[in-house]
């Protein structure tokens, strides 16, 4: 009889091409996504005269630099246009399918890749982007890599890896009404720290996780990297299968049946061993916002800005002092009183149709008190939101409805928050300057961002229920 295995053990074992004495394994990569940032890696490939080993398993998506306004016309900024053009040229030269600027399927790589059915349970998925952990929502081993590793995958369709440790985060019970995957994940990060899962592959388990939709699971796994995790995953189940059925690149016919049989055997054994276990009670999770410049600096909306002088750990206190100064806050100030200057709804974390529905539900019939932008996760999500009437709710509230891309989450395309302004944002990183030099970011769920838009300050969305 085989020893008990976790989902991650199974994913790992089935992709090992070769085990080396020193503990490294050569892993087969099933899917490789490349975006505009891949130009360093394509440059490395060109420098050694190599070719792409498996263009059929490689997919290009234009997202990091694409303009969200004036789509269809020429890209006005020459340096941004060059980034987008380089991706088109590199993918064309190597015969790689591209969801480019003008493709109706274009979107953020972690939204487009999953909605196209390219990500499946049991696969290895990599991309030169840390939020590749998103794809783990399907029960895939998905992780972000640097440019040198992107070049390695392009040249060989494999990667040398050391097996990470296994960590299970269980969230048991039912969440209160109005609590989303974003609140669960921000609470997890605040609990274990921004490096709490370093060196670990996370499996999310428990009844509160099983109850999440695929969109929710993607939000959760997306931010695994914000807890330091190498990857995050949820075992596939009926929710996963229902989401994938009929997606353009997902198997069909006899292969679909065979795939389902395979996926049914992926879940962790009841007695699987984990190197670390963390348990959270779903019922105590409140709508959560960040107050600082690391995702671990998060608290329930009902709390106040913490007092660094009351912190026992001098390193944490120093970080808190620095964060509070940068964020322009005062210790003891209730979070639900902090005025915001603008809002942003978008990013690979929270820009899927369910996210837009949640935000629109709060905004319906209201005017936003502050300016803001809504960038759907893909051009197909955009179309669907327009068909469902969500886009009209956003524009009638006074928010700007724009095209899909990474946009104001990373600011590479020029969509930035002005210096000193405070933004309620559905994104993943509240790092200093992440949304633009001097920008102040508060992370929260789409419904919480919508509530902040309506009141002009950080707001407990439960008062809209």
């Amino acid at each position, binding site marked *: 009889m085989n020893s008990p295995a976790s989902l991650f053990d199974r994913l790992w074992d*089935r992709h090992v091409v070769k085990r080396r004495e020193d503990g490294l394994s050569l892993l087969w990569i099933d899917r490789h996504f490349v975006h505009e940032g891949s130009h360093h890696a394509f440059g490395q490939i060109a420098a050694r005269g190599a070719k792409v080993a498996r263009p059929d398993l490689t997919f290009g998506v234009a997202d990091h630099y694409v303009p969200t306004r004036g789509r269809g016309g020429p890209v006005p900024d020459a340096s941004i246009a060059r980034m987008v053009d380089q991706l088109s040229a590199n993918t064309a030269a190597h015969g790689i399918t591209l969801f480019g600027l003008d493709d109706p399927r274009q979107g953020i790589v972690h939204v487009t890749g999953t909605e196209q059915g390219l990500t499946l349970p049991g696969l290895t998925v990599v991309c030169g982007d840390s939020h590749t952990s998103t794809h783990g929502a399907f029960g895939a081993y998905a992780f972000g890599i640097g440019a040198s590793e992107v070049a390695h995958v392009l040249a060989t369709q494999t990667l040398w890896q050391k097996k990470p440790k296994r960590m299970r985060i269980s969230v048991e019970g039912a969440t209160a009404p109005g609590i989303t995957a974003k609140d669960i994940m921000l609470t997890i990060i605040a609990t274990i720290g921004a*490096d709490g899962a370093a060196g670990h592959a996370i499996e999310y388990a428990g009844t509160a996780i099983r109850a999440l939709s695929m969109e929710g699971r993607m939000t959760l796994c997306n931010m695994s990297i914000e807890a330091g995790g190498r990857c995050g995953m949820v075992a596939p189940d009926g929710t996963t299968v229902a989401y994938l059925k009929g997606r353009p690149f997902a198997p069909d016919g006899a292969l679909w049946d065979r795939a389902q049989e395979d996926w049914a055997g992926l879940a962790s054994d009841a007695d699987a061993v984990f190197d670390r276990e963390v348990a959270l009670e779903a019922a105590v999770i409140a709508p959560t916002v960040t107050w600082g410049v690391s995702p671990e600096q998060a608290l329930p909306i009902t709390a106040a800005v913490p007092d660094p002088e009351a912190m026992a750990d001098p390193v944490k206190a120093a970080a808190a002092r620095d964060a509070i100064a940068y964020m322009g806050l005062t210790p003891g100030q209730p979070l639900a009183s902090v005025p915001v200057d603008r809002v942003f709804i978008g990013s690979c974390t929270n820009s899927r149709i369910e996210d837009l529905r949640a935000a629109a539900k709060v905004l319906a019939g209201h005017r936003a008190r502050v300016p803001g932008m809504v960038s759907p996760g893909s051009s197909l999500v955009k179309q669907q939101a327009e068909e469902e009437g969500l886009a009209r709710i956003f524009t009638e509230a006074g928010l700007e409805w724009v095209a899909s891309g990474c946009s104001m989450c990373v600011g590479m395309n020029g969509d930035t928050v002005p210096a000193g302004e405070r933004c309620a944002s559905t994104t993943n990183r509240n790092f200093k300057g*992440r949304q633009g030099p001097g920008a102040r970011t508060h992370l929260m769920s789409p419904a919480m961002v919508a509530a902040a838009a309506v009141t002009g300050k950080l707001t407990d969305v439960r008062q809209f229920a």
Partner: protein
Amino acid sequence: MTPFTRESAALMRLPVANVDTDQLIPARFMKEPRRPEGYGRFLLRDLVAEGTAPAPAPGQTILVARRNFGCGSSREAAVYALADFGFRAVIAPSFGDIFASNCVKNGVVPATVSEEDAERLLGIEALPATVDLEAQTIACGNVVVPFRIDPVWRTQLLNGWDDIDLTLAEADSIAAFTARDVAERPWAAPRRD
């Protein structure tokens, strides 16, 4: 990649936790070509401007910081900025996993020390420090502290070998794997109608 054995140079002290890769190189510089000038001129640009970080000084090739150094984005440009400035080793109580891996690919040593030892190094007035990869020690003045590094990374850094060449020599193993895998998981290929 240049092999690393031992590095003695001025130590840059950065007493900040969670220095993310957006700080090491802000996103707006990443559309610049890396060559010929290199990314060293962008290193920590905004943290220096706001006064949180000291300006990196020419001759400094070893950096010590607080926990979770290099967290966040997978951008290898963060390591290019360090390496192009001249840094060959970074010391912290913990690192972002992707960043640490990117360091090794570029010949930069990610040296993990205890929180206490990081604070000791951060507290020493400017003196040259020595990172000895074979002995896994950092010496600065009369302080000598051990550091941890994955043994595989240590070997790679000591030898400076190239991953892609190594893997291309495994062509037979890869071909055998894919032949078996296509039979076992025919559904795993992207459907092309």
